[in-house]
């Protein structure tokens, strides 16, 4: 009967009520936390990411702005808005500056990622007693310590967050700034925990070890002026005999083949090609003709200062290993413009940059972290517009040696302590220079400048000298460029107040947390 069929149809349709599972749609793309970190490989994968992308916003431009442009080793190309419109050259960075904010965000992002991992791992450890978690916790604490070291050096007094998740749930984000000394102490505590939890040798090439933590602690102690502790920690690294200076200084910075060499205690790991995963320094620091055929790379956005060019001692091989100037050539770097190898040519009579010539303000480019053009003919050393796979050194053995020498010198005017001289001369002699027989603070600082040029560290070396000395150094620097006729168009920084020692806390942050504008309080 027609109606009966109709009733059956109606009942079946109307009574449709989806099963409970109909609304349950777990992610189809990824696992969730409840079923992850169940083995060592997953833990190692997570901590591995702390060496990479999380640092990108710093590496991208703030790295040069702060460590190099502030420090007087590099210039930004005329008023580049991406580099703070010359404000890092003139020492007029303001709290609304984009790179200031990016540096702040990057360091805290590193710390935040590390902290979330530490806390997540700790919860798993507490509930499952899985011992494969432990090295992961120590490794993440190392990274967090480094991040807070950068925060303390860059911004001075600063907030500390140990549980972002709890903070997010609290509804009250008005944290105070903590004294810089306490932020450094927080970093040192992380280093101590990392040293205790890490193995003596890396479980994978490039992973940090307990000596990485000791070396980093030495660097923090030196920054604080705690020379005794710095010396002890540096000596731990030296006496382990596990690290040595890499014979080819230039290779360390120009080919991925030297990645994670015996000189490297802690280096950021990059993967060629991927935006934000790769080391993109050459895109900004490299000259355009070299980077052909890539279009969006080779901006010469940051170039060596005349001041730095003049700082190298005669015969210091590091100048040629670190800087490209007229006459530099590299037969391995081939591209469509330079089929038989790249040569650096600034000789164009008063003309502009063209496809082959480079006429930037100081007629020079940094060579560090320059990997060559995309088609450099070396598939094992790939590069692209988004960057290459060159590790970025945060701590290398040469640094530990110079820390040791400086720690031994301490507050003395000079020293001829054999162990200090020996450490210093290892670095000095690799550059083809004659060993020294006594050491002063000035010598060590100068050595650090030329040894670590373009490695993002020089500003901090100046800064830790205190306002008086730092302002003398900065104000004496030539930050100008060459005119077409070779004369210097002088530019100097204006470093007049101690507040210029630290970058301003970004104004976005102060709006969100007005306590950041108030005086710092102790954390411990």
């Amino acid at each position, binding site marked *: 009967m027609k109606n009966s069929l109709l009733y059956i149809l109606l009942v079946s349709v109307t009574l449709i009520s989806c099963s409970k599972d109909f609304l349950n749609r777990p992610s189809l793309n990824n696992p969730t936390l409840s079923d992850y970190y169940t083995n060592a490989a997953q833990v190692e994968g997570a901590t591995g990411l702390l060496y990479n992308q999380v640092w990108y916003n710093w590496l991208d431009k703030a790295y040069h702005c702060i460590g190099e442009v502030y420090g007087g080793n590099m210039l930004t190309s005329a008023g580049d808005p991406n580099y703070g419109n010359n404000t890092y050259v003139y020492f007029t960075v303001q709290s609304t500056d984009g790179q200031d904010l990016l540096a702040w965000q990057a360091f805290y992002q590193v710390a935040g990622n590390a902290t979330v991992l530490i806390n997540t791992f700790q919860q798993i450890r507490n509930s499952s007693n899985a011992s494969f978690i432990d090295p992961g916790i120590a490794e993440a604490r190392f990274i967090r310590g480094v991040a807070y070291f950068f925060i303390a050096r860059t911004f001075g007094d600063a907030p500390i967050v140990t549980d972002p998740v709890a903070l997010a749930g609290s*509804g009250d984000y008005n944290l105070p700034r903590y004294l810089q000394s306490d932020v450094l102490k927080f970093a040192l505590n992380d280093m101590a925990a990392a040293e205790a939890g890490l193995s003596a040798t890396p479980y994978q090439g490039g992973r940090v070890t307990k000596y990485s933590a000791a070396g980093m602690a030495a660097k923090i102690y030196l920054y604080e002026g705690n020379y005794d502790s710095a010396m002890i920690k540096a000596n731990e690294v030296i006496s382990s005999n596990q690290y040595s200076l890499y014979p080819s200084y230039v290779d360390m910075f120009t080919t991925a083949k030297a990645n994670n060499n015996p000189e490297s205690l802690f280096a950021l790991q990059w993967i060629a090609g991927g935006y934000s995963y790769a080391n993109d320094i050459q895109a900004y620091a490299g000259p355009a003709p070299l980077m052909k055929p890539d279009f969006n790379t080779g901006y010469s956005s940051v170039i060596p200062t005349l001041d730095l060019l003049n700082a190298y001692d005669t015969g210091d091989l590091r100048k040629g290993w670190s800087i490209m100037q007229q006459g530099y050539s590299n037969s391995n770097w081939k591209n469509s413009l330079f089929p038989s190898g790249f040569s650096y040519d600034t000789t164009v009579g008063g003309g502009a940059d063209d496809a082959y010539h480079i006429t930037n303000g100081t007629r020079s480019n940094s060579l560090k972290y320059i990997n060559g053009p995309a088609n450099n003919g070396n598939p094992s050393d790939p590069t692209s517009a988004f960057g290459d796979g060159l590790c970025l050194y945060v701590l290398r053995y040469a640094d530990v040696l110079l820390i040791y020498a400086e720690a031994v010198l301490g507050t003395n005017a000079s020293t001829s302590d054999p162990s200090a001289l020996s450490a210093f001369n290892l670095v000095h002699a690799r550059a083809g220079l004659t060993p020294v027989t006594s050491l002063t603070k000035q010598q060590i600082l100068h050595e650090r400048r030329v040894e670590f040029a373009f490695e993002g560290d020089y500003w901090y070396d100046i800064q830790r000298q205190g306002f008086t000395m730092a302002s003398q150094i900065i104000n004496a620097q030539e930050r100008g460029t060459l005119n077409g006729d070779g004369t210097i168009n002088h530019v100097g920084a204006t470093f007049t107040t101690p507040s210029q020692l630290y970058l301003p806390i970004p104004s976005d942050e102060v709006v969100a947390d007005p306590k950041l504008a108030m005086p710092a309080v102790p954390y411990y």
Partner: protein
Amino acid sequence: MQFIALCKSRFLAGRFIKTLMVMKITVFLVLVASMNVSAKVYSQKLTLTEKNAPLDKLFTEIKKQTGYTFVYTESILKKARTVSLQVVDVSLEKVLQICFQNQPFTYEIVEKTIVIKPIADAEVLIPVATTDITGIVTDPDGKPISGVSVEVKGIKQGTETDVNGIFKLKGVSASAVLVFSSVGYEKQEIVASNNPVINVSLKLNSSTLGDIVVIGYGSTKRANITSAISSISEKDIKNLPVAGADQMIQGKIPGVTVTTNSGQPGGGVSILVRGITTVNNNQPLYVIDGVPIIASTSSGGMDYLGGVAGQTVQSPLATLNPNDIASIDVLKDASAQAIYGAAGGNGVVLITTKKGKPGEGKLEYDLYYGQQQLQKKLPIMNLRQYAQYYNSVLAEGTTTGVTDTIGEFLNPSVLGSGTDWQDAVFQTGNIQNHQLSFSGGQGKTNYYFSGNYFGQDGILINTGFQRYSLRMSVDQQVKNWLKAGVSGNLSRSDQKLAVTDGQQSVIAAMLYNSPATPVKAFDGSYVNTTPIAGVPFGNAQNPVALAALRNVHSIQSKAYGNLYAEIQFTKDISFRNQLNYDFQLNDNTAFQPNIVNPDGTVILSPSKLRVDKSDSYYYGLQTYLTYNHIFGKHALNFLLGHEASYNHYDDANVSVTGLTLNIQSLSAGTPDPAAPAGGSTYDGASESYFARLLYTYDNRYSVTLSGRRDGSSNFGPDKRIGYFPAVSAGWTISNEKFAQDWKTLSFLKLRLGYGSVGVSSVPANTYTTNIRLASNAVGLFGQSGVPGIPANVGNPSLSWESVVTYNAGLEAGFLNGRIELTIDLYKKITTQMLLATTLPSFAGLDPNPPNNNYDEIEPPYTNAGQMTNTGVDLGITSHNIKTRDFGWNTIIVFSQYKNILDKLNAPGAVLFGKSQAFAPVTLTESLAGQPVGSFYGFVTNGLYRTMTDLTSGPTPMLPVGVQGTWLGDIRYKDLNGDKAITSADQTFIGNPNPKFTYGFTNSFSYKGLDLSIFLTGVYGDQIYNYSRMETESLFNVYENQLSTVLNRYSAANPNGSLPRYNQYNENNLKISDRFIENGSYMRIQNISLGYNLPGKVIGRAKISSFRIYVAGQNLHTFTKYSGYDPELGAFNNNVLTQNIDYGHYPNPRSLTVGANIVF
């Protein structure tokens, strides 16, 4: 009620009571209702002779002769009259008619059963003396009108006029009142008076009260509406030369603010229904013929080819052919939206498409063709002015630091005007539209088919939009109780894009590119920079080359529609099953060739091709029952339904580089190591129950109750269900007795509504902590697996966002509907917003959620915050003059709202809107107590013009000196009074939300001519003119500037209005009110003049109507805004970045000619 009465019958009790007991109320209603299905198949003949016989005796006799049984309650027959009759070989129908004549009950036939039931109050007895009536219904011009409903008042007898306007009614009593009604005409009543011929001329109706309004899962007359719903019809939006229906309703609907986000053809459109509902996505729900459109459309980011991504969100309606739209109804308040529950929070736009109408088939062809161009050019310096500017900067070398003398510029008067980059980048674009449709209805079938082509060139070179679409719709009366239909819409749209909005926008780069650089060299190759006196002029990226050589497309192929079956159990009860589907393929490609000039100059490199394909599908099943009944003065409409839907999205992308011979093919290149292949898959589901009751008493008092229970997969197991109730009431005062004598005020109605709706738009699976698989990081430390790190902080207690609206509305009609006024006041409160917790950056989680950055751990989403919008919507329609030959109508639409973000998730929490740049800067801050998206920065107070200015006031931001703060620099205000200019002196400097928006339409008709003038405008908003930060930057002497920079401060021009040339610092380029501009504008949006060819001319060609017209769109904008176009919208529909002009694609001006031809 009727069905209750039936329940008591023996028939039901005996046969179905057991079944009923186990059924839900829905099914109960359905079954009961189905008893009444009538079938007119009683052809048996009877022979009977009875005198004063009781009825039951007759029943027995009839059963004997025909086999038909009778069903009744004993009590009902007690009131029966006896019957006398003598018939020979008469039909059952006739016999029953005699038996039931003047009885206090009537009957219905179900199969072979005759059910006896009481007569409803409204029904009157069918009189005996009858006449067959015929007639013709015409319009005021004497043309026949088809489809006019002709009903006998009070009984179920009626018909419609045919194509020739002719109707026929059989057996109409002399006292019967015939009611003639048709949409668009005034209802007319005529007493039959035994006239066999009744010809009627209907008057045009100016009132909209009889219009049918779509209310979601049904429709009703406007007069019955108790909530805030605005409607427009096809005629209001036809022939507008824009890609999407969303742009067409701009300025036409009170309370709906429409702003195009970009002049890019097919580009994004911001639609705000009554202000900003939430800091999240504000896009309303679009429902087309019951099908919710959920697939989003966005192009691929331009960043893959290098640079910033630019605007990527496109209009979801651009893929749909607006020519098929019959009407658009917008549900504006929660009492109207609640039937859509969790999906309705941002407002609901119900689009009804054209269907075939009964009558002779109609063939219709619409076309227009036009041209589009830039509305205005900016006064950028030409080469002579530029050289003059350069020389003046050089002359002040001691303070400007510019020392390179350029010999070629020394005498500007000998120079030409140089390259006009605006002319090089903008073009005149063609626009055309062709629509062919066939529609009609014969007997039980109505059909509509259409095909459409729309093509538009952008006014920016190498941009454009094309769309091909097909629509088919068939409605079939399968049985007299069953109607079924299917509709299908197929479209393919192809959008060609350039980078717009942001640092690398073609327009931004064009604006400051030097007039000294040619676009191309003599050999035809592009030029980047040209050395002049050893100084390079130009841009590393030639904007024309960028736009012309790259090939970026976003192609959408879409199919959507529905399949339904509707069972009409009785006149009152219907039951509808509808299956909705929406299937979309997106194909985004970005291609860049490798272009290197013979001299080695790289124009574009390397060659790259990215292909990003995704597919999404949606299906939903709706079942709902509608019960409509009028008894006495009570009118009831009840709806009960269930809906379940599922959607699925799948995406895959791959990129190659090193393309052989620049061939745009994946096979011509090798995988790009910078962009490994990727993809993702998502799905989601929802299930809902809904109900609505509309009750009207005596056409005076109405109340609507509605509610929806929604379940969504977006929330955790314990929080999936949300309940959304609403109530509204209306009082039609003019129907009260005391109002009968009102002369001027012919209609007056008061409405009050309250309702709660929700928003569930939150990224999928945020209630749980997901692991981000960093596929790009494979190989770190030689590891082979994909490493994973927490992607977010899960919040299992995440639940629905709530939007509560209070609405008070007044509708008034004057002079019999000559003037109609609708005014609504509302307050909309959004609470429990689905907020990505905004933490300061130092917390270490993503400080700018929900921008899902590559390397950040997303903070938890929480239900927090509150936002209030208060506003007024006003609509006035006036038929100023209405004569046989001349008509003049005016429509005024006014929308006002005030938005305040009352609180966020924490007292100090801020949502930032950033610039589109490599180092983004904060432009807007949204925090408690401020309108959303408020501009934030410094306040200027003129320039430092004297040394006293520099030294006497608050300490400038930079030390006093040529390289610091110097004469001619901007003097910012010390707002906090600490005697120093610091970042603490920033404040809110502008509000991008308008004080009000309006539309003003005047249409005139004189015989066959019609003229319409439509003005639209925005008042009281502010714009951040970011482009002017580049074009008046006075920062880099090699970049071109607006000619205003010639009047800058210098030692020689101490009264200059702009600050000095300053390449040492960005002090003058702070985010400040220097770049805030008044965004108010009034625009002549459309003027069209049409002519209907006279019938005697076209009749010979079998054409029934032929209209030709010319129209101008966006003809002139009255504004003080200095940029291209004050209509800016929101970058990617984000309310945090509204009204920011940074390389924005201006809306074009168009002139079109077109025709509508109906055969």
